[in-house]
């Protein structure tokens, strides 16, 4: 817990606390030093310098913090405004009491110091010193008189034997020391009460000069090891230029009292002199304490404001993050169990729940997306075309099968009305009307069959409608291309007819023909008016031959096909067939397929090509400038590579009503023929997994397009992509 707490406070906080503690200790030591602590007084100036530097560092730290705060305020960072306000408030709150305390402390201190130096005390001290001097002055006069008498006596007796006599003289006057000096201040003779003192106390040159000029000198002096107060008396003899100095002891009491008065006066004088300096020292110390308190308060205000507002700032930033969609934000609880902790806890709960709800929604959306994708995939791979129309009749969705079957790019028509799309796609008006009645009525379940002309030819569609559950008013139109199915049914029916014709008609034809020929042989030229017989039998034989040909055609059509495919060069085969029509001037060739192979039955393909070329040449019979153009090329479409052969004539073209049925058996506009040619062609092409289309060409004529998959491409070309006919075609 302690480690966690320390980590929370942080290194900077610890450093600041260390600095503040050091400053506090230093100020305390300085305060003790000011109070004349002998040990600390020597540290006063270093402590003063240390405190000044410490305060400077504190000011720099506060300056940096304030600068950051102001920068954050200018940049409108979250919480900066509130933090600055709190810092100003805390600072003002701390400045006021600290300032008041400082002001009154200074007043008290300065007045207190001034009170030490009252005028009365000053005068009393002066008087005490004067009194001390006055009490000694009387004694000094007596001693001067006594010393003058001693000098006269010494002079009268001369200097001879002075060394011997001087001791008795000293004893006579009760002096501590008696000395006779010459005019230069050299000792001539001296006697001390203490025999151990061998060196006389010689006055300095100034005292001697004074004694010489005034005749005498009387002064006080501390003397001896115990520094007792003595009266120094020096008298000068102008005749001999000698000096007599006597040091008289004062009484111990006088000495003690005088010393005490002197010390007290000296101390008072010293204090009086230091009055200004004392005030400055105390003021400086108090100022340092004030600055320390103030800056500490400012620093504490900055720290406390940050600490207090940090959860609020984090909360603000986290709220912004949540507003921007980041629900992973979690706040650290400030602890303490107060309202802020409760707020942070509630915020964390809220974001957690929002995140859970968002995840749930995302999962649901993903599931819906997966379902939609599944349905779309399903729809895309359905062979049934599916179109959804909203309640307004607008196209909403269409699968690719719908586009392929109807030959319409539904993506380009997204959002258009289905009726407009239907008209552009040339759907029959009655079908459009049916659809309109379906989505306008409540009877949504309808079905039917319709023929629609598309770019790839007429198609038979089986359609049905249903309403979409869950989407009010939506209609789903589904349709299947049953063109192939119908064609297969027709082909099957025609095959059955052909088989029966071959079976029921061909059998009696031979006896009829034989009978007609026997009649002709037996009775031609033997009966009268045999011209009739001749014409009748000839007609019978001829018509029977014709019927036989027709029956053989039907037989061929109905006969199960024997298909032997092998790789062959299509263009070479075409050239072989074209060689049979070399004399036809109308024929023009433009062959570009080269040696490309197709898997096919050469006999059957030759039959196809022969039939198509023959039909084209027949179509231009009687045309002024007949033209039959045969072109080949190798192309690719929808991943299928195929050979395309195009045969175009400038004949009369197909009757538009016939155009959709040209490949049906017995559908012919020619006077001659069974109408099975193109049906057989279609059958052979289907066996080769190719495709064949017819259209009228502009400005005249017809065009037949044959497509066969390149060898090995059958799988990719199932079904064979249909050509896109231009308007001219």
């Amino acid at each position: 817990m302690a480690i966690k707490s320390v980590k929370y406070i942080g290194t900077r906080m610890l450093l600041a606390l260390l600095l503040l503690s050091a400053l506090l200790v230093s100020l305390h030591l300085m305060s003790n030093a000011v109070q004349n602590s002998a040990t600390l007084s020597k540290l006063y100036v270093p402590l003063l310098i240390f405190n000044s530097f410490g305060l400077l560092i504190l000011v720099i730290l506060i300056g940096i913090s304030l600068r950051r705060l102001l920068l954050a305020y200018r940049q409108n960072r979250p919480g900066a405004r509130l933090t600055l306000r709190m810092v100003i408030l805390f600072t003002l709150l701390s400045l006021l009491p600290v300032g008041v305390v400082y002001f009154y402390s200074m007043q008290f201190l300065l007045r207190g110091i001034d009170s030490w130096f009252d005028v009365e005390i000053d005068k009393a001290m002066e008087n005490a010193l004067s009194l001390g001097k006055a009490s000694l002055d009387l004694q000094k006069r007596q001693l001067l008189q006594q010393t003058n008498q001693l000098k006269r006596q010494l002079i009268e007796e001369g200097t001879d034997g002075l060394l011997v006599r001087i001791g008795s003289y000293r004893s006579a006057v009760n002096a501590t020391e008696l000395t006779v000096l010459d005019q230069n201040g050299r000792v001539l003779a001296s006697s001390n009460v203490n025999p151990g003192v061998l060196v006389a106390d010689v006055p300095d040159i100034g005292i001697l000069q004074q004694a010489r000029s005034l005749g005498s000198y009387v002064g006080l002096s501390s003397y001896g090891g115990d520094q007792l107060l003595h009266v120094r008396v020096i008298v000068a003899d102008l005749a001999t230029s000698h000096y007599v100095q006597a040091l008289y002891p004062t009484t111990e009491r006088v000495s003690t009292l005088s010393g005490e008065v002197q010390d007290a006066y000296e101390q008072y004088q010293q204090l009086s002199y230091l009055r200004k300096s004392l005030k400055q020292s105390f003021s400086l110390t108090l100022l340092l304490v004030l600055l320390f308190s103030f800056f500490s308060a400012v620093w504490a205000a900055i720290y406390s404001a940050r600490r207090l507002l940090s959860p609020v700032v984090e909360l603000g930033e986290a709220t912004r993050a949540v507003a921007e969609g980041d629900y992973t934000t979690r706040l650290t609880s400030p602890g303490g169990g107060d309202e802020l902790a409760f707020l942070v806890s509630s915020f964390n709960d809220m974001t957690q729940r929002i995140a859970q709800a968002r995840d749930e929604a995302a999962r649901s959306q993903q599931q819906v997306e997966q379902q939609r994708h599944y349905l779309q995939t399903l729809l895309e791979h359905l062979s049934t075309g599916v179109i959804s129309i909203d309640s307004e009749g607008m196209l909403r969705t269409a699968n690719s099968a719908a586009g392929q079957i109807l030959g319409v790019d539904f993506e380009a028509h997204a959002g258009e009305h289905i009726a407009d799309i239907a008209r552009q796609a040339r759907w029959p008006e009655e079908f459009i009307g049916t659809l309109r009645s379906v989505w306008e009525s409540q009877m949504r379940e309808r079905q039917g069959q319709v023929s629609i002309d598309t770019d790839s030819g007429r198609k038979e569609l089986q359609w049905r409608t249903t309403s979409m559950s869950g989407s009010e008013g939506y209609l789903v139109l589904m349709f299947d291309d049953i063109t192939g199915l119908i064609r297969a049914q027709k082909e099957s029916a025609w095959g059955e007819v052909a088989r029966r014709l071959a079976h029921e008609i061909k059998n009696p034809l031979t006896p009829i023909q034989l009978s007609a020929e026997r009649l002709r042989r037996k009775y031609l030229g033997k009966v009268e008016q045999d011209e009739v017989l001749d014409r009748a039998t000839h007609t019978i034989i001829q018509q029977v031959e014709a019927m036989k040909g027709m029956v053989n055609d039907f037989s061929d059509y109905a006969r199960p096909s024997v298909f032997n495919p092998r790789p062959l060069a299509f263009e070479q085969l075409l050239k072989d067939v074209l060689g049979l029509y070399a004399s036809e001037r109308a024929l023009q060739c433009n062959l570009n397929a080269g040696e490309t192979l197709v898997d096919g039955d050469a006999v059957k393909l030759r039959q196809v090509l022969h039939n198509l070329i023959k039909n084209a040449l027949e179509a231009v019979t009687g045309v002024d400038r007949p033209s039959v153009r045969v072109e080949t090329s190798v192309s690719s479409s929808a991943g299928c590579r195929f050979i395309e052969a195009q045969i175009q004539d400038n004949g009369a073209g197909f009757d538009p009503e016939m155009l959709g049925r040209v490949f049906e058996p017995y559908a012919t506009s020619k006077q001659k023929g069974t109408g099975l040619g193109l049906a057989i062609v279609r059958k052979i092409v289907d066996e080769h997994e190719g495709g064949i289309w017819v259209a009228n060409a502009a400005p005249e004529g017809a065009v037949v397009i044959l497509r066969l998959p390149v060898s090995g491409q059958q799988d990719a070309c199932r079904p064979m992509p249909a050509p896109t006919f231009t308007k001219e075609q």
Partner: protein
Amino acid sequence: MKLRWILFLLLFWAGSIMAGQIDIQETRVWLQGERYLLDADLVYELDDGIMEALDNGIPVVFSISLVVEEASLISPQLANDRLDYHIRFRPLTAFYEVTGPAGGQRSFVTRAALFAYLGELREVPLVDVAMLDKEASYRYRMKVELDIESLPLPMRPMAWFSPVWNLSSGWREWPLSP
């Protein structure tokens, strides 16, 4: 702004010039028995502020530092002494009282006598002959200064930054030949 600084520095410099000084005029080293003794002539020119403080009972200490060392790069010290002279004014007797390094006291009526006494440094033991190598060369250094740390505490901050009180002769050195 620059002009103000220049003026301030000039005033500080002028103040330090006029504040007084301590100078070591001459030193002499002579042999007495087995010991070298030092005589020195010093000049004390003190500012009135110091004298005023002295007259008002502020004790003043002059500190004389003496160092004897080898005249080499490493300069190992053979002797390092400090002589403190405490001066105070006694109001009752009106004497200037000097307490020397050995504890002996002398009193002087006039300042002139006081500084004449302080200026004559005589027979100060410097170094024993036994400590010196005749082959080596030596030098002795000397510095006289007013000891600010001995002033009463309230005066020290002012004294630290005042040229009046920052009095020092600086280190002076002379060769010492054994």
